């Protein structure tokens, strides 16, 4: 990825007042994605910090996606799908619920602040709730500051240029792995 594609969310050092958190949201196609569409058609203004990745169902969301997002520099992650009993695929959200109850505990145990991970159920008719989820999660992550723990942990293990993406000085977030594959 070249310099121009750098999402220009102003990144800054921990403690900086101008810190703008970056959040990745994994949402299901049928409820939350559509609910977010409704928020759009209703013109509900919300924080611009969340990037949505669309999946068919929360059941498809591998806990490793969340870990990967943190590894790639996300300061927070949102997982959201259909309300219990409303899953488009009957039961995917139940599997997701169990999976993320475990993941939440594991991440907390590993020292990741629980504020960084938000789970919610947002139906296709709950555009306003989606705006609340986005704003709430952004504010919680803003309060706990940038997620630097993982980077600090692997700082010694990685060569300097690999580490570059984590540097929060507006440096290009080079995607070495992706580029090679692409």
């Amino acid at each position, binding site marked *: *990825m*070249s310099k*121009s*594609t750098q*999402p*220009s*969310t102003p990144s800054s050092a921990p403690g900086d007042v101008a810190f703008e958190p*970056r959040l*990745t949201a994994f949402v299901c196609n049928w409820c939350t*994605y*559509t609910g*977010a*569409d409704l*928020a*759009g*058609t209703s*013109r*509900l*203004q*919300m924080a*611009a910090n969340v*990037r*949505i*990745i*669309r*999946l*068919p*169902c929360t*059941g*498809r*969301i*591998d*806990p490793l*996606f969340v870990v*990967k*997002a943190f590894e*790639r*520099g*996300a300061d927070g992650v949102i997982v959201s799908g259909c309300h219990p*009993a409303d899953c*488009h*695929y*009957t*039961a*995917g959200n139940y*599997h997701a619920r169990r*999976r993320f109850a475990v993941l939440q505990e594991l991440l907390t145990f590993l020292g990741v602040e629980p504020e960084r991970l938000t789970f919610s159920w947002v139906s296709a008719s709950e555009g306003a709730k989606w*705006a609340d989820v986005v704003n709430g999660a952004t504010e919680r992550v803003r309060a706990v500051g940038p997620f630097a723990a993982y980077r600090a942990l692997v700082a010694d293990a990685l060569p300097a240029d690999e580490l570059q993406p984590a540097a929060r000085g507006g440096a290009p977030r080079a*995607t070495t*792995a*992706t*580029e090679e*594959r*692409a």
Partner: protein
Amino acid sequence: MARVGVFVCHCGENIARTVDVQAVAAALGELPGVVHACEYKYMCSDPGQSLIKQAIQDQRLDRVVVAACSPHMHEKTFRKAAAAAGLNPFLAEMANIREHCSWIHEDRAAATAKAIALGATLVEKVKHNRPLSPIRIPIERRALVIGGGIAGIQAALDIADGGREVVLVEKDPSIGGHMSQLSETFPTLDCSQCILTPRMVEVYQHPRIKLVTYAEVESVEGYIGNFKVTIRQKARSVDPDKCNGCGECQQACAQQKIPSEFDQGLGKRSAIYVPFPQAVPNIPVIDRKSCSLFRGRAKKAKKDACRKCADACGRQAIDFDQQDTFFTEQVGAIVIATGYQLYSIGKEQPAGLSGYGEYGYGQIPDVIDGLQFERLASASGPTAGRILRPSDGKEPRTIVFLQCVGSRDPQKGMEYCSKICCMYVAKHTMLYHHKVHGGRAYVFYMDIRATGKGYDEFTRRAIEENGAIYLRGRVSRMYRDGDVIRVHGMDTLSGEPVVIAADMVVLATAMRSQPGIDALAQKLSVSYDRHGFINEAHPKLRPVETNTAGVFVAGACQAPRDIPDSVAMASATASKILGLFSAEELEREPTVARIDPMTCIGCLQCARVCAYGAITERAITDRQGNVVRVVADVNQGVCQGCGTCQATCPSKTPELEGFTDEQVYAAINAL
């Protein structure tokens, strides 16, 4: 290296107002693999689509990303455009920079940055997209209809008239359902039997309908277009091929005092019986719980206690040794039309319910429910259409109707509205007025909900022309006082308590789902709500489909429904099914899971989490035929593409087309 084309839409001003579309196109154009990036005012318009098609051809693009509105809006449009230019449609993706960006942000710099990021995730993802082609599944073009009430009858007739075969399964000895019990129907006061029985006969005689009564669905396997249904034919104890329906056996039967289900316990029947004279088919069954012979056999009596029916039968049609039999049917679609039951608020109540003891139903004989009143008012009923109270056969001079018994009551009953009661109570007051001259009818109601065509006029007629006295309020208590029932209620409009000395009370009890619907729903893997009503796939846009492809729902098993609604739903299912059957093969979106047997470890975790039973075990054998190992195998006809298997698999073997790990990780990496 992929050759990706990026097309950024202004959506008039909708996107361009807050997002710098030129900057987005320029930034995405810099990404590795992107060989073409442009923006245009209306990408979905004809010139916009031509722009995409032209670029695919001129630039030899093999991937396309359109940054515009929601994929729910225009994914199909752009995939079609890509296909028109010779590109596999599944190599085109959309980035949502309208609903998820320009419309919800005001800060131009932040919105532009976000639009670039969203575009980048899709550019990285699309590089890993594979060309896919629609899955084709052959269809067995026959339908199964479960339930022979008015909804099932209508669905079966419509499908059969449309040229396809139908198997109609009914659990009772006759089709007709609850509608056959009704006296007259609102709002026209048509005789129910007069409009229903011709349709029942039509079903019986239709060359493309296979009618199976006194039978139940035992098990269902397969998927849309290819269901294999096992049906249990319960032992009738009468050979249907020999019986000519003369009725001699019923007169000969020693047991004549069994409460008739059809007459809601107000009439009597024999142990060998047809439920009602107009039954279709007109072939009796032996109720083995009541028959002296079978009760004797159950007690291991040495000699049969009674063979009067067999002796009376001139055609030797009675077969006491008949057993339940099973047979299978191959069908491509299934209609659930199992109907409803009334909430019985007597001494014995269904599990989890215990309300309304204060109304004395089941203790005071002259407190009856709506269906019992129908039987009293029916010309074919136990009183030949005269309104006579069950206790002493006298004509009730004062009658009280209670609406919403068990409905709209979250505390003791069901919180939903049973929909039909306001109308049938109005009808009952009219029938009462016509049959008992000078009688007084009181109705306790909460609200009058008369929303159908001609419905409000009908209730007004009951009040204004037929003199029914409507009191807005509830009844707290009823008890027997000599010859009358004292009804203590409240007229909330005048604020006065009311006590009525009634000769008879009719309770409009709630409509509930049929017992056993949960077991049937599980056989068909369709979901149902906590009241046991079958869930439709979408309450507005897919009202007669269920969440299992190929399984449809009609009538009161989906929610309380009146006859016009049930018939409309039934015809809707028929039209859906005839549409499905119009092709020999079914075409499905190829976004389903695929399992590579080379990496599958055969733990079958995926099969356990699959809500559709789409994953089965497959044995891999060597040349001698010995099983080497087992792997999971996806039935692409059943898979709905949720991807739960992929997230569950310890070896990450299942790949959900369109959302593979490669694609998702590429998207995450781009952020």
